């Protein structure tokens, strides 16, 4: 019997490593070729640091990516990986996860890959709750094709393809995910290593489709897109299950529910800590999580919640699909069963 992680968790069925692994074990021999200063480096380093802590076997890790700068990610991790085609990684990962419950399946994608060309696959993978973990690198720009606006770029964005300013309204990726019935929805930031580690660990430990939006700086085409958020006085709103949602200098600002049921930001001193919303990541109803996702600016970013917006249990598509099957381990028995099936009940003999 091979040891695995407990049932019900995201990694249940994935065999555990006999010997402890280190960051080095997850580092491939490929030279990393992102631009200097790219946020992807920090995410890669964090990922390579957290993988050994999961205790699973390296060979039972699969990373599937689409196309874009971040989608080069699998080449740099010494596990099994596929760098596929634009937007299709969630679909490919679905086939991996359905046929191999003994694998930890990661999807690496970007804002263009996941939300533009691959939007359909993303929402359906989330809706089905396939047991995969999606890291969505959001830099609010197309990097690999050299700087066109993306489906998360703010309206008015001036790029090579929008010299007069973009007239497109951006997606809010987490609102989209919640609308698609996602069971695990979170956001983190490339430069916040501890937070990134914590959120990604929670995501892979969740059984079902997890999506983690990672704010990721593109120093070449959209430098500083998240600077206003990251400063000491910035508007990152950390969410912790069971705690009042406060942020800003000394937690002076907080999220409160208005009389019309919507969420808004208030001075804690004014409203009193007792009136600040207590975060419930496990609420069955996604309404409040959706309202939290709406606290994200759609134009230049000044406020945005980070952490786990939603983490609820629901049976996964792949577990349910496999449960319907009778798998014959004995090849002779399998062939005999198939022979009976193709012969059928309505035959004649010549």
């Amino acid at each position: 019997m091979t040891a695995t992680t407990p049932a019900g968790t995201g990694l249940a069925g994935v065999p555990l490593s006999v010997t402890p692994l280190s960051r080095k074990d997850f580092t491939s021999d490929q030279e990393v070729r992102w631009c200097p200063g790219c946020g992807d480096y920090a995410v890669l380093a964090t990922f390579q640091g957290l993988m050994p802590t999961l205790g699973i076997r390296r060979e039972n890790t699969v990373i599937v990516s689409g196309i874009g700068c971040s989608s080069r990610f699998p080449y740099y991790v010494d596990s099994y990986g596929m760098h596929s085609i634009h937007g299709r990684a969630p679909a490919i990962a679905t086939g991996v996860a359905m046929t191999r419950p003994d694998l930890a399946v990661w999807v690496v994608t970007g804002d263009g890959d996941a939300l533009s060309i691959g939007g359909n696959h993303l929402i359906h993978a989330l809706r089905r709750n396939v047991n995969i973990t999606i890291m969505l690198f959001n830099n609010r720009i197309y990097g690999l094709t050299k700087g066109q606006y993306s489906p998360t770029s703010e309206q008015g964005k001036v790029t090579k393809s929008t010299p007069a300013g973009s007239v497109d309204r951006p997606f809010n990726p987490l609102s989209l995910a919640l609308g698609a019935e996602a069971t695990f929805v979170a956001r983190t930031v490339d430069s916040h290593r501890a937070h990134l580690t914590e959120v990604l660990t929670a995501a892979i430990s969740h059984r079902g489709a997890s999506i983690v939006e990672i704010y990721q700086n593109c120093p070449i085409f959209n430098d500083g897109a998240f600077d206003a958020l990251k400063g000491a006085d910035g508007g990152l709103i950390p969410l912790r299950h069971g705690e009042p949602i406060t942020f800003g200098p000394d937690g002076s600002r907080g999220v409160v529910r208005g009389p019309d049921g919507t969420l808004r930001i208030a001075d804690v001193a004014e409203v009193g800590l007792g009136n600040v919303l207590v975060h419930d990541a496990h609420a069955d109803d996604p309404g409040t999580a959706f309202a939290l996702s709406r606290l994200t600016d759609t134009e230049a970013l000044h406020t945005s919640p980070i952490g786990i917006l939603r983490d609820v249990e629901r049976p996964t598509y792949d577990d349910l699909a496999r449960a319907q099957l009778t798998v014959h381990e004995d090849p002779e028995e399998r062939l005999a069963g198939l022979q009976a099936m193709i012969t059928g009940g309505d035959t004649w003999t010549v």
Partner: protein
Amino acid sequence: MTTVTTVDHVVIRFAGDSGDGMQLTGDRFTHDTAAAGNDFSTLPNFPAEIRAPQGTVAGVSSFQLHFADFDIRTPGDRPDVLVAMNPAALKANLGDLPRGGLIIADTADFTPRNLAKVGYASDPLTDGSLADYQVHALDLSGQATAAVASLGLGRKDAARTKNMYALGLLDWLYHRPVEGTISFLEKKFATAPQVRDANIAALKAGYAFGETTEVFANRYKVAPAPAPAGTYRQVSGNRALAYGLMAGAAKAGLQLFLGAYPITPASDVLHHLAAAKDAGVLTFQAEDEIAAVGAALGASFAGQLGVTATSGPGLALKMETIGLAVMLELPLVICDIQRAGPATGMPTKTEQADLTQALFGRHGEAPLPVIAAQSPGDCFAAAYEAVKIAIDYRTPVILLSDGYLANGAEPWPVPDLAALPPIDPAFATGPNRPDGGFWPYLRDDKLARAWAVPGTPGLEHRIGGIEKADGTGAVSYDPANHEFMVNLRKQKVDNIQAVVPPVEVDDPSGRARVLVLGWGSTYGPISAAARRVRTAGRRVATAHLRHLNPLPANLGEVLRAYDRVIVPEMNLGQLAMVLRSTYLVDVQSYSRVRGLPISLSELAADLVALIDEEDAE
């Protein structure tokens, strides 16, 4: 007194409104015919609309069955017997019935309103316009309703048994046993005893009507057809194809994973495999065609057998992913059940116009094997071979079938799975480099690459759509390497020719000057037409291709051995173009794109004219 006439073959067409149960009636008559030991071939023909306006020509659904005391190849061009359940069915099908043909019409639906709906000014059953045919105008609905009156069904439900009444009558007329259909009805309506009893009563009443009345002066017998010994069943192309995929996966010891998006006429492949959960088959109804093939490729990457099934429009959508599979060199089977195109085209009608899409429809140099099934039952062998080639050579394979094969049925000798050639995935299990490393793009002597699946310790590697360095599989933008890899991938597919059997020529005379070469579902019409041409005293050779890429090694030599090569296709000459460019042989395209199988009588007549012209030269 009814006399019994023995005939060697009969073509019957059941036609009615799409709600009249004509497909079921035809299917049951086929079963009853199988039980009588005849060879048979069927052609269902139905509108794309689920319920087209009632009583209109657009809403006519038909099922044609050809059965004989010899081995037949097609469902027949023109019916000898037309069963018309309403005026629209008569109007839509009369043109196909030769003069003297038998018409059995249900008078109940020949009302002034229904006649007017399809443009009949007067009732053709009574106005003498059908004088050239043998017409039996019978109140099938009324008689069926009367037969089930004691069972307490509502008027509408009672009248719905008219198809079983008609079936019973035809079973009597052609000496078919009805027991199989009775037990079928017992099972089908087990939970609705009233409906079950009514359908059985109607079937028996139809049979008894033939026996006790003297409406029919003639009754027909068709002797059993000789066939090789074995256990037979009836099978449709899509079912046989699903079984072939399952057999291939089972022999390879892999799980069968089908990713599919519903599309006519391929959906039955999804249905048959989704029903095979007891056999461990995993099916995934994806959000679109692209996700369907993507998930299948993911399953193959994970070390199982990924398959997708679609039709032409879906194949177009999948092409980028198929190109990725070419680059990744992973097994993948793509089934294209062709239909009339382009765009939506005619979804329920057949065509062979996806050949060039299958061969050349990807960007970049992306060769892959293409194979085609030639009859409904042959879909099994073709699917099995597609699986074997995909696994042996680590390549996507396109398997071509079409609507005609998919929905048509024929007797099928049930294959012995134990006797099928083995399929060995031969996974990489350890290092393949002297230094203990693993290179995913090291190859065997066939040029198939090493296939290491996730979960195998020490063989961790990354693959992707970017050009691979030879051997290591690392990302490479080196110009010389790219050219080398483009050629290597082509050579690998070309190497499959080693397992492609030489094309066999059928020329009983040994002296034919004209060769008719086909591929896919034209096998039936071509071989039947050739038989007719030879009966007419002409010499003709025929040959048929299963493998469209790579082509059989001896094909060029075969083509050059004839003065004329005719290539009938349900497209504008796609194989002909390939043959001309590959072999510089002046083959002649014979093109029919009507959404129907090529007419054997038309082809036979055209061939006779061609041969006479050739002989005159």
